[in-house]
């Protein structure tokens, strides 16, 4: 495939086209990903998440500055929600990163969630692979911070940066349930705003409840708009990353991630095969009626269906 070569050479237009391919779930996508797969695994992936208005994009903008000054090639995937009504989206996160638009070693891509729950667009994993194969050293994923559904970012990122700001009121309560635990590094942004001490105390309290952890989650205070605390933050990230590596946690994390991906992949593949065989889309209304009227009972009916399917496929396998 010509596109594969061009992506591996790092051609920007090709990288962009390849991301569209995976984003749209194009029929050529699987072949494409398989062809680049062996070139993946070099990039470090940071996930940046947190509630709306926490200053995530501004922070990412400043992190790009830092990493560029070290000569790294940086890619950003910024995920924003699609409208549940129209399916459209306004993607504006890159507005705060536009000073990097013309830097050939920075690639920024906005993605709409397209109805995928979890805060990270459905095909983000594959988009990360494209960027990884194209030679970006660091890939930053900025995801929607909308409460509990953003937990999926840990399935994509090596390090999760959770950005919080003072004055969120009850929002922090919602965050506490689940999301608060996903951070590797806690960034308390807008440190000059009222309530920063309270927020810091709350985060530290929450972390103390996590119990003993040899890595200990760092808490960093920043003011992204004023570029304060950013250098310290990158040091913290580097330090944390090297500790992740030496403690073998990174390997463990990545393996866990791949395991989960395999499970997702299997489920969706099997679903596709089964749905095709049973003609689910065509029949589902009919089955529903039968279930409602009591004509059939759920388990025996579908067990029989699956059994028939399995027998048919093994017969097919025999004859082949």
């Amino acid at each position: 495939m010509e596109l594969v070569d061009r992506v591996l050479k790092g051609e920007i237009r090709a990288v962009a086209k390849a991301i569209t391919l995976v984003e749209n779930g194009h029929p050529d996508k699987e072949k494409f990903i398989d062809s680049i797969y062996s070139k993946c695994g070099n990039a470090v992936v940071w996930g940046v998440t947190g509630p709306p208005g926490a200053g995530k994009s501004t922070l990412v903008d400043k992190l790009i500055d830092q990493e560029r000054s070290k000569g790294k090639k940086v890619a950003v995937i910024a995920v924003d929600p699609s409208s549940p009504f129209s399916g459209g989206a306004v993607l504006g996160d890159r507005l705060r990163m536009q000073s990097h638009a013309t830097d050939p070693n920075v690639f920024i891509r906005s993605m709409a969630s397209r109805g995928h729950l979890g805060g990270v667009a459905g095909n983000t994993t594959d988009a990360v692979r494209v960027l990884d194969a194209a030679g970006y050293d660091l890939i930053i994923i900025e995801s929607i911070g909308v409460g509990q559904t953003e937990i999926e970012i840990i399935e994509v990122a090596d390090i999760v940066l959770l950005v919080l700001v003072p004055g969120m009121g009850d929002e922090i309560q919602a965050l506490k349930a689940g999301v608060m635990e996903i951070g590797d590094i806690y960034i308390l942004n807008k440190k000059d705003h009222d309530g920063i001490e309270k927020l810091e105390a709350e985060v530290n309290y929450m972390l103390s409840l996590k119990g003993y952890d040899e890595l200990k989650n760092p808490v960093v205070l920043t003011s992204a708009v004023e570029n304060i605390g950013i250098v310290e933050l990158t040091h913290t990230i580097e330090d944390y990353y090297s500790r992740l590596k030496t403690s073998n946690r990174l390997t463990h994390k990545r393996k866990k991630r791949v395991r989960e991906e395999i499970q997702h992949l299997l489920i969706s593949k099997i679903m596709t095969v089964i749905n095709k065989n049973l003609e689910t889309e065509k029949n589902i209304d009919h089955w529903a009626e039968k279930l409602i009227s009591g004509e059939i009972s759920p388990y025996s009916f579908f067990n029989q269906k699956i059994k028939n399917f399995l027998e048919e496929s093994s017969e097919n396998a025999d004859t082949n």
Partner: protein
Amino acid sequence: MSNKSKVAQEKERWESNVVNKLINKFPERNANFTTGSWMPLERLGLPKDCGEEYFEKLGFPGEYPFTRGVQPTMYRGRFWTMRQYAGFGTAEESNERYKYLLNAGQTGLSIAFDLPTQIGYDSDAEESIGEVGKVGVAIDSLADMEILFDGIPLDKVSTSMTINAPAAVLLAFYIAVAEKQGVTKDKLNGTIQNDILKEYIARGTYIFPPKPSLRLITNIFDYCSREVPNWNTISISGYHIREAGSTAAQEVAFTLADGIEYVRAAIEVGLDVDVFSGRLSFFFNAHNDLLEEVAKFRAARRIWAKIMKEKFQAQNPKSMMLRFHTQTGGSTLTAQQPDNNIVRVAIQTLAAVLGGTQSLHTNSRDEALGLPTEQSVQIALRTQQIVAHESGVANTIDPLAGSYIVEEMTDRIESEVWDYINKIESIGGMVKAIEKGYVQKQIQDSAYRYQKEIESSERIIVGVNKFQTKEDQPEDILEVNPRLREIQSQKIADVKAKRNNEKVANKLAALEAGAKNPDVNLMPLILDAAREYATLGEICNVLRKEFGEYKESIVL
């Protein structure tokens, strides 16, 4: 004691204490005012009978809470200043237009600068490509400013300059030109817009972040209160907020909230509220909904008076007066059937005058197409003159007062405005509300709703979604010389060749040192650099280096 007698008593007091004192110094335009058919016309319509509420809410013109106007005789004393915003191309071309306008009976100048000037870039900067001289005149250094005011005595005109982020620099150029004309600073009259907050909200010509921007603004307040006492140091502007799509109440609310922020900043650096507040001025929009607009202006005066008196404990009544300039609504003009715009502008003029404006710019019919032609500008100016001299509305003060519906609307706008102001205060002030995107969001939601209503024809715009006709656009739309950037760049090169570059470098170094120290007033340092022909871009770049640049952060 009956209220009736109180009104009569109060009227007597007002006339003898306030009006007569003023008339002795500044007589009214006529000894007697009548209608067009010679019916006698009272200076001020008053209720025959009323409760205390009247005195609290309305009072008398020239007195707290100034709902009925800031001067005791209003337009019976003197018409509003007719001030057409103009400027395009080179300083030479604009100079010609200003002389034309002054000859046509205009009473004040209003300078439009091009975008590079407004954002502190010289014409030869990369960023200026395509924009030089487009929406206003290109000014790169004192040399351009000298040409701009050539033959216009600065002690005789009042000049309003629509300049914000680099306001200090343009004011310095103006002072330096005056010095060359032999006019001292205390003789200068005029206004700089100098309102950075609404740039972040609605207009987009910002340079520096809020903190250093507010420092420049308070530096100007302080400097002018001592050196240029008749200068209006800021024109706190709702005009652009409305243009961006806000409602009438939002326009007032966000403008006054900006005002609160400026007053607070000035008090924080130790300025006396009664020293600088009298030089604050405002700038509003006038739209087509006549009664609502009149109510808006009246409400704005009443609220500002309360803010200054109660929140900031101002003592001097001048500090409580909301004096404002009005411009008719640019966004209400249509590219379709452009002559219809003359009628829209006439209605808006009436709104501004019935609302008690101190000065007015009327838009030209062809501004939705491009820069206005001379003929269109003349019609716009004539519109004001017809309202002033023929309509009769200027012959009695605040004529719509007491209309049930206008008073009701005034109250309603006031209460909506207080809700917004309180909300913004609870966020932590206007800077924080802008950073959070609260203000922008309110405006965008209103703008979106408005546009949707036009799309669905719930709201009729004549000639746009109803009563359309097939038509050709007028041919005589002004076009700016596309070679202007080259011309200006050559001028900059000439200036740089002629000036004493060592002196310039010294003055710029002094400015840089001053910028590092937040206790230094930068105005004198900028003036020193301006006098040596440092360019606008050079001065702004020194400040960019020290202050950093503001980045837009809020999307939708």
